[in-house]
């Protein structure tokens, strides 16, 4: 039981980190990133490949965050001066293409067979203590993400990005260019996402392309929307709700013997789809929010 809770906590913490990244981009700045999973994959593969070549963990994690942010840079430069929906289309496309690259560039990524045997920090401590230590690492990363968000959002920079979310033209009218700020936020968010990817890869010790499907992006979206976009606590609450939902659906499968595993996957997808529709329609401010956006 304790092992199970540790596992759920670890996965939940990783989702929280993802949600923090997207919340910074979408919740506070209004950027529509439909390619969360791509930056997640960049982080996971970067860290995994470096670790397997003997690079110390600290550097693996740092490289994962930095490289994910660097991937965001050209996409942001190209899209962020254009209409909001172009970023959505381009990031969605980027995620698809990246998956193709991961599948076909076997020399680097081992293709569909994936990368096994990724070392996990603290594995020397034994299963229970090691798992617990890893959970602590994930939670520390999450808290760092929270503190980063709080400090950014409360700063003059944070004021400006929220102004951009509310009205870009008005921001231009006071002599500030939205594109620069949006690019910075996009990269910081991608960096957090990349870090989450690294944590995921070392936790699972095995990664393969079919773990990085578009659906994952929208898990994070639904977490941010449920928790309430544009509130720091919202990302955490949303990630908790998402984890609860995903774990709950697994239990549900055990009590509904007539539903096959494959059908359960369909049901989960249906629930995510329905939630995306219903929340945007009826509760765009999230489950807990008060002010309508």
């Amino acid at each position, binding site marked *: 039981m304790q092992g199970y809770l540790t596992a759920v906590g670890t996965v939940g913490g990783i989702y929280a980190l993802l949600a923090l990244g997207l919340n910074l981009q979408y919740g506070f700045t209004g950027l529509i990133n439909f390619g969360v999973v791509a930056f997640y994959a960049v982080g996971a593969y970067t860290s995994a490949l470096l670790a397997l070549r003997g690079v110390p963990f600290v550097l693996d994690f740092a490289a994962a965050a930095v490289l994910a942010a660097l991937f965001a840079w050209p996409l942001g430069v190209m899209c962020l001066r254009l209409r909001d929906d172009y970023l959505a289309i381009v990031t969605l496309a980027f995620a698809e293409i990246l998956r193709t690259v991961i599948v076909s560039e076997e020399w680097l990524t081992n293709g569909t067979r994936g990368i096994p045997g990724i070392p996990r920090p603290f594995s020397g401590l034994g299963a229970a203590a090691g798992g617990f230590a890893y959970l602590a690492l994930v939670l520390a990363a999450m808290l760092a993400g929270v503190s980063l968000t709080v400090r950014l959002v409360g700063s003059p920079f944070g004021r400006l990005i929220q102004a951009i979310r509310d009205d870009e033209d008005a921001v231009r*009218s006071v002599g500030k260019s939205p594109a620069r700020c949006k690019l910075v936020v996009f990269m910081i968010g991608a960096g957090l996402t990349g870090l989450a990817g690294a944590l995921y890869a070392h936790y699972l010790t095995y990664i393969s392309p079919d773990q990085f499907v578009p659906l994952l992006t929208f898990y994070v979206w639904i977490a941010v929307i449920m928790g309430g976009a544009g509130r720091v606590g919202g990302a955490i609450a949303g990630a908790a709700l998402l984890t609860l939902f995903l774990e709950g659906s697994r239990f549900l499968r055990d009590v509904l013997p007539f539903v096959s595993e494959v059908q359960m996957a369909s049901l989960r997808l249906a629930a995510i789809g329905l939630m995306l529709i219903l929340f945007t329609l009826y509760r765009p401010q999230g489950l807990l929010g008060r002010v309508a956006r």
Partner: protein
Amino acid sequence: MSLGVHGVNKSFGGLRVVDDVSFQVQAAELTGLIGPNGAGKSTLFAVISGFQPADAGCVRFDGHEIQRLSAAARARLGIARTFQVPRPFAHLTVRENLLTGARDQPGEHVFNLLCRPGVVRQRERQIVARADAMLEFLGLTRVAGERAGALSGGQQKLLELGRALMTEPRFILLDEPYAGVNPVLIEEIERRIRTLSEQGTGFLIVEHNLPALARLAARLLVMDRGRLIASGTPAQVLADRAVQEAYIGGGP
């Protein structure tokens, strides 16, 4: 110091909205821009402030051609504008709206937040002081902590004026500053505009409330169907035959 347009043209889908308009406005001479709905006044504002590229012609400010500059760059040069329908940052507080207008806050760069927090804090103190003075000046102190989206239309007009002023402009384009504002507040705004004008800030004001504008302006420009049809002192312009026809809708 002056702001001018020269041979500006602007069309939307074959419809010429601004048709070969040229004029020059001196900062010392508060100028009004009037004309019936659809005359092209707001579009001209958008061209001057850089929100719409002109199809032809140039915009000059303080002796420099600025039509190639972005809207943000023009604002940094000192041309501020407000919008016909107020566009506050609805989810920020009233004070934050003003703070966002302030120029030279190094804390708007993440690098400075990390590496020069002292400088950021010091500048923030100055800006907050200025914003609080502005709140006082506009009579918005009481609502400083409220979300801008919750203000009345008239208060939003004031807030937008304040946000524009926070950019320390040399020239301000006001798009219908009195629309939806109650008469008491109008006098208030009028007094403030006059004070600023006397301190040397240039004004070009689009306004449908002609009596109020005539009290304020030293000079009026009149547009109709995209063209500039008259200019002169308010008395001259309002007596002009063509202007009256444009307003009454006479003539083909």
